[in-house]
Protein backbone atom coordinates (compact mmCIF):
# COMPACT_ATOMS: atom_id res chain seq x y z
CA UNK A 1 0.00 0.00 0.00
CA UNK A 2 1.25 3.46 -0.90
CA UNK A 3 -0.08 6.94 -0.36
CA UNK A 4 0.57 10.27 -2.04
CA UNK A 5 -0.71 13.64 -0.91
CA UNK A 6 -1.88 16.57 -3.05
CA UNK A 7 -3.01 20.01 -2.00
CA UNK A 8 -5.99 21.99 -3.30
CA UNK A 9 -7.33 25.24 -1.82
CA UNK A 10 -8.83 24.28 1.54
CA UNK A 11 -8.46 20.57 0.81
CA UNK A 12 -5.90 17.81 1.10
CA UNK A 13 -6.29 14.84 -1.24
CA UNK A 14 -4.68 11.52 -0.31
CA UNK A 15 -4.32 9.02 -3.16
CA UNK A 16 -4.18 5.44 -1.85
CA UNK A 17 -2.83 2.56 -3.93
CA UNK A 18 -2.68 -1.17 -3.26
CA UNK A 19 -4.06 -3.45 -0.56
CA UNK A 20 -5.18 -2.28 2.87
CA UNK A 21 -4.92 -5.07 5.43
CA UNK A 22 -3.67 -5.47 9.00
CA UNK A 23 -0.09 -5.09 7.79
CA UNK A 24 -0.65 -1.82 5.95
CA UNK A 25 -3.59 -0.16 7.70
CA UNK A 26 -1.48 1.37 10.54
CA UNK A 27 0.47 3.35 7.91
CA UNK A 28 -2.73 4.52 6.24
CA UNK A 29 -4.22 5.52 9.60
CA UNK A 30 -1.16 7.60 10.46
CA UNK A 31 -1.06 9.31 7.05
CA UNK A 32 -4.75 10.20 7.16
CA UNK A 33 -4.73 11.43 10.76
CA UNK A 34 -1.59 13.53 10.13
CA UNK A 35 -3.14 15.01 6.98
CA UNK A 36 -6.39 15.76 8.76
CA UNK A 37 -4.55 17.84 11.35
CA UNK A 38 -3.40 20.25 8.63
CA UNK A 39 -6.55 20.68 6.58
CA UNK A 40 -10.21 21.53 7.09
CA UNK A 41 -11.22 18.97 4.44
CA UNK A 42 -9.63 15.61 3.71
CA UNK A 43 -10.50 13.82 0.47
CA UNK A 44 -9.39 10.19 0.12
CA UNK A 45 -9.01 8.67 -3.34
CA UNK A 46 -9.60 4.91 -3.13
CA UNK A 47 -9.74 4.25 -6.89
CA UNK A 48 -6.51 2.25 -6.91
CA UNK A 49 -7.27 0.27 -3.76
CA UNK A 50 -7.60 -3.37 -4.76
CA UNK A 51 -8.49 -4.74 -1.35
CA UNK A 52 -9.57 -3.56 2.09
CA UNK A 53 -10.23 -5.58 5.24
CA UNK A 54 -11.82 -4.72 8.58
CA UNK A 55 -8.61 -3.11 9.88
CA UNK A 56 -8.65 -0.71 6.92
CA UNK A 57 -12.32 0.05 7.55
CA UNK A 58 -11.53 0.63 11.24
CA UNK A 59 -8.82 3.13 10.22
CA UNK A 60 -11.30 5.03 8.04
CA UNK A 61 -13.85 5.03 10.89
CA UNK A 62 -11.21 6.40 13.26
CA UNK A 63 -10.37 9.22 10.84
CA UNK A 64 -14.08 9.96 10.42
CA UNK A 65 -14.54 10.18 14.20
CA UNK A 66 -11.56 12.52 14.45
CA UNK A 67 -12.97 14.68 11.63
CA UNK A 68 -16.32 14.91 13.43
CA UNK A 69 -14.64 15.74 16.75
CA UNK A 70 -12.65 18.56 15.17
CA UNK A 71 -15.47 19.77 12.91
CA UNK A 72 -13.65 18.88 9.73
CA UNK A 73 -14.83 17.06 6.62
CA UNK A 74 -13.83 13.61 5.34
CA UNK A 75 -14.88 12.60 1.82
CA UNK A 76 -14.11 9.28 0.10
CA UNK A 77 -14.25 8.77 -3.66
CA UNK A 78 -13.46 6.20 -6.33
CA UNK A 79 -14.58 3.16 -4.37
CA UNK A 80 -14.35 0.04 -6.51
CA UNK A 81 -16.60 -2.99 -6.17
CA UNK A 82 -14.35 -4.68 -3.60
CA UNK A 83 -14.30 -1.69 -1.24
CA UNK A 84 -18.03 -1.09 -1.68
CA UNK A 85 -18.79 -4.71 -0.82
CA UNK A 86 -16.83 -4.52 2.42
CA UNK A 87 -18.54 -1.26 3.42
CA UNK A 88 -21.91 -2.84 2.69
CA UNK A 89 -21.10 -5.99 4.68
CA UNK A 90 -20.10 -3.82 7.65
CA UNK A 91 -23.18 -1.57 7.23
CA UNK A 92 -21.03 1.55 6.89
CA UNK A 93 -22.03 2.96 3.53
CA UNK A 94 -24.24 5.57 5.17
CA UNK A 95 -21.85 6.99 7.74
CA UNK A 96 -19.22 8.04 5.19
CA UNK A 97 -19.56 10.86 2.70
CA UNK A 98 -18.88 8.99 -0.56
CA UNK A 99 -18.60 10.43 -4.06
CA UNK A 100 -17.94 8.85 -7.45
CA UNK A 101 -15.29 11.21 -8.81
CA UNK A 102 -12.65 13.62 -7.55
CA UNK A 103 -14.59 16.57 -8.99
CA UNK A 104 -17.68 15.56 -7.05
CA UNK A 105 -15.63 15.02 -3.90
CA UNK A 106 -14.12 18.49 -4.20
CA UNK A 107 -17.60 19.99 -4.58
CA UNK A 108 -19.00 18.08 -1.56
Amino acid at each position, binding site marked *: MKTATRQRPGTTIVDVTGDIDMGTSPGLRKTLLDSLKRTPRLVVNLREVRYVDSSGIASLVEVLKEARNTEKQLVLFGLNK*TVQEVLQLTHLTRIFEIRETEEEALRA
Partner: protein
Amino acid sequence: MSCNKENAPELLPAQGASGPLKFQMRMASDPRLLAVVRSTAAELAAVWGFKDEQCRGIALAIDEALSNVIRHAYKNRCDQEIELHCQAHADCLEFIFVDRGESADPAKFCGQPLDEVALGGRGTHLIRQIMDEVCYERLPGRNRLCLKKFLPGARRKV
Protein backbone atom coordinates in the same frame (compact mmCIF):
# COMPACT_ATOMS: atom_id res chain seq x y z
CA MET B 1 16.76 -18.51 -21.62
CA SER B 2 15.34 -20.36 -24.59
CA CYS B 3 12.60 -22.91 -24.64
CA ASN B 4 13.30 -25.93 -26.79
CA LYS B 5 9.91 -27.40 -27.50
CA GLU B 6 11.39 -30.55 -28.99
CA ASN B 7 12.95 -31.46 -25.67
CA ALA B 8 10.05 -30.35 -23.55
CA PRO B 9 8.44 -33.18 -21.58
CA GLU B 10 5.10 -34.27 -22.89
CA LEU B 11 2.25 -33.20 -20.69
CA LEU B 12 0.70 -36.12 -18.90
CA PRO B 13 -3.05 -36.43 -19.06
CA ALA B 14 -4.64 -35.45 -15.76
CA GLN B 15 -5.14 -38.52 -13.64
CA GLY B 16 -8.13 -38.63 -11.36
CA ALA B 17 -8.98 -34.96 -11.91
CA SER B 18 -12.14 -35.26 -9.90
CA GLY B 19 -13.10 -35.71 -6.25
CA PRO B 20 -11.98 -33.51 -3.39
CA LEU B 21 -9.02 -31.18 -3.74
CA LYS B 22 -6.90 -30.48 -0.74
CA PHE B 23 -3.72 -28.76 0.23
CA GLN B 24 -2.24 -27.22 3.33
CA MET B 25 0.04 -24.35 4.19
CA ARG B 26 2.27 -23.86 7.18
CA MET B 27 3.04 -20.18 7.46
CA ALA B 28 4.57 -17.64 9.79
CA SER B 29 2.19 -15.30 11.57
CA ASP B 30 3.49 -12.45 9.42
CA PRO B 31 0.95 -9.98 7.98
CA ARG B 32 3.02 -9.72 4.80
CA LEU B 33 1.80 -13.22 3.92
CA LEU B 34 -1.88 -12.25 4.06
CA ALA B 35 -1.93 -11.17 0.42
CA VAL B 36 -0.43 -14.50 -0.65
CA VAL B 37 -2.98 -16.53 1.27
CA ARG B 38 -6.03 -14.54 0.23
CA SER B 39 -5.11 -14.72 -3.45
CA THR B 40 -4.67 -18.49 -3.09
CA ALA B 41 -8.06 -18.79 -1.39
CA ALA B 42 -9.72 -16.71 -4.10
CA GLU B 43 -8.14 -18.84 -6.85
CA LEU B 44 -9.26 -22.05 -5.15
CA ALA B 45 -12.80 -20.70 -4.87
CA ALA B 46 -12.78 -19.74 -8.55
CA VAL B 47 -11.53 -23.19 -9.57
CA TRP B 48 -14.31 -24.72 -7.48
CA GLY B 49 -17.02 -22.76 -9.26
CA PHE B 50 -17.74 -19.80 -7.02
CA LYS B 51 -18.62 -16.50 -8.69
CA ASP B 52 -16.27 -13.50 -8.58
CA GLU B 53 -18.10 -11.74 -5.74
CA GLN B 54 -18.11 -14.94 -3.67
CA CYS B 55 -14.40 -15.49 -4.35
CA ARG B 56 -13.66 -11.97 -3.08
CA GLY B 57 -15.79 -12.67 -0.01
CA ILE B 58 -14.04 -15.96 0.72
CA ALA B 59 -10.64 -14.28 0.39
CA LEU B 60 -11.79 -11.59 2.84
CA ALA B 61 -13.04 -14.15 5.37
CA ILE B 62 -9.74 -16.07 5.19
CA ASP B 63 -7.80 -12.81 5.63
CA GLU B 64 -9.91 -11.82 8.63
CA ALA B 65 -9.49 -15.22 10.28
CA LEU B 66 -5.70 -15.11 9.82
CA SER B 67 -5.56 -11.52 11.05
CA ASN B 68 -7.44 -12.54 14.19
CA VAL B 69 -4.95 -15.33 14.84
CA ILE B 70 -2.00 -12.95 14.42
CA ARG B 71 -3.58 -10.15 16.46
CA HIS B 72 -5.29 -12.06 19.26
CA ALA B 73 -3.79 -15.55 19.56
CA TYR B 74 -0.20 -14.48 18.87
CA LYS B 75 -0.46 -10.83 20.10
CA ASN B 76 1.08 -9.53 16.85
CA ARG B 77 4.17 -11.73 17.08
CA CYS B 78 5.25 -12.43 13.50
CA ASP B 79 7.35 -15.55 14.03
CA GLN B 80 4.71 -18.00 15.20
CA GLU B 81 3.23 -20.82 13.16
CA ILE B 82 -0.21 -21.05 11.60
CA GLU B 83 -1.46 -24.10 9.73
CA LEU B 84 -4.13 -23.68 7.11
CA HIS B 85 -5.78 -26.79 5.72
CA CYS B 86 -7.94 -26.24 2.64
CA GLN B 87 -10.26 -28.85 1.24
CA ALA B 88 -12.68 -28.56 -1.64
CA HIS B 89 -15.56 -31.01 -1.18
CA ALA B 90 -18.28 -31.69 -3.74
CA ASP B 91 -20.61 -29.21 -2.06
CA CYS B 92 -18.34 -26.77 -0.22
CA LEU B 93 -14.95 -25.33 0.51
CA GLU B 94 -13.55 -25.96 3.97
CA PHE B 95 -10.73 -24.00 5.60
CA ILE B 96 -9.25 -25.12 8.92
CA PHE B 97 -6.88 -22.83 10.83
CA VAL B 98 -4.72 -24.22 13.62
CA ASP B 99 -2.53 -22.09 15.88
CA ARG B 100 -0.78 -22.58 19.20
CA GLY B 101 -1.49 -19.16 20.61
CA GLU B 102 -3.74 -17.90 23.35
CA SER B 103 -7.32 -19.11 23.34
CA ALA B 104 -10.04 -16.96 21.85
CA ASP B 105 -13.26 -15.94 23.54
CA PRO B 106 -15.86 -18.20 21.90
CA ALA B 107 -18.48 -15.47 22.44
CA LYS B 108 -16.64 -13.33 19.91
CA PHE B 109 -17.41 -15.89 17.21
CA CYS B 110 -21.12 -15.69 17.92
CA GLY B 111 -21.64 -12.52 15.91
CA GLN B 112 -21.89 -9.41 18.03
CA PRO B 113 -24.20 -6.56 17.04
CA LEU B 114 -22.29 -4.02 14.99
CA ASP B 115 -21.70 -0.61 16.49
CA GLU B 116 -21.19 1.66 13.48
CA VAL B 117 -18.52 3.81 15.09
CA ALA B 118 -16.73 1.08 17.07
CA LEU B 119 -13.19 0.52 15.89
CA GLY B 120 -13.04 -3.26 16.38
CA GLY B 121 -15.25 -6.30 16.09
CA ARG B 122 -15.94 -6.18 12.36
CA GLY B 123 -13.61 -9.04 11.45
CA THR B 124 -15.68 -11.79 13.04
CA HIS B 125 -18.84 -10.10 11.79
CA LEU B 126 -17.48 -10.28 8.23
CA ILE B 127 -16.48 -13.93 8.63
CA ARG B 128 -19.99 -14.81 9.82
CA GLN B 129 -21.62 -12.77 7.06
CA ILE B 130 -19.60 -14.45 4.33
CA MET B 131 -19.13 -18.06 5.44
CA ASP B 132 -21.92 -20.58 5.99
CA GLU B 133 -20.39 -22.43 8.92
CA VAL B 134 -17.99 -21.10 11.55
CA CYS B 135 -16.77 -23.44 14.27
CA TYR B 136 -14.12 -22.55 16.85
CA GLU B 137 -12.66 -25.10 19.27
CA ARG B 138 -10.01 -24.83 21.93
CA LEU B 139 -8.00 -28.06 21.85
CA PRO B 140 -5.13 -28.95 24.17
CA GLY B 141 -2.47 -26.33 23.46
CA ARG B 142 -4.02 -25.06 20.26
CA ASN B 143 -6.93 -23.27 18.63
CA ARG B 144 -8.86 -24.72 15.72
CA LEU B 145 -11.18 -22.65 13.56
CA CYS B 146 -13.16 -24.27 10.76
CA LEU B 147 -14.88 -22.18 8.07
CA LYS B 148 -17.12 -23.63 5.38
CA LYS B 149 -18.65 -22.05 2.32
CA PHE B 150 -21.20 -24.06 0.38
CA LEU B 151 -21.59 -23.90 -3.35
CA PRO B 152 -24.78 -22.13 -4.46
CA GLY B 153 -27.62 -24.63 -4.31
CA ALA B 154 -25.66 -27.15 -2.24
CA ARG B 155 -27.53 -28.74 0.63
CA ARG B 156 -26.37 -27.48 4.01
CA LYS B 157 -26.37 -29.36 7.26
CA VAL B 158 -29.13 -28.19 9.59
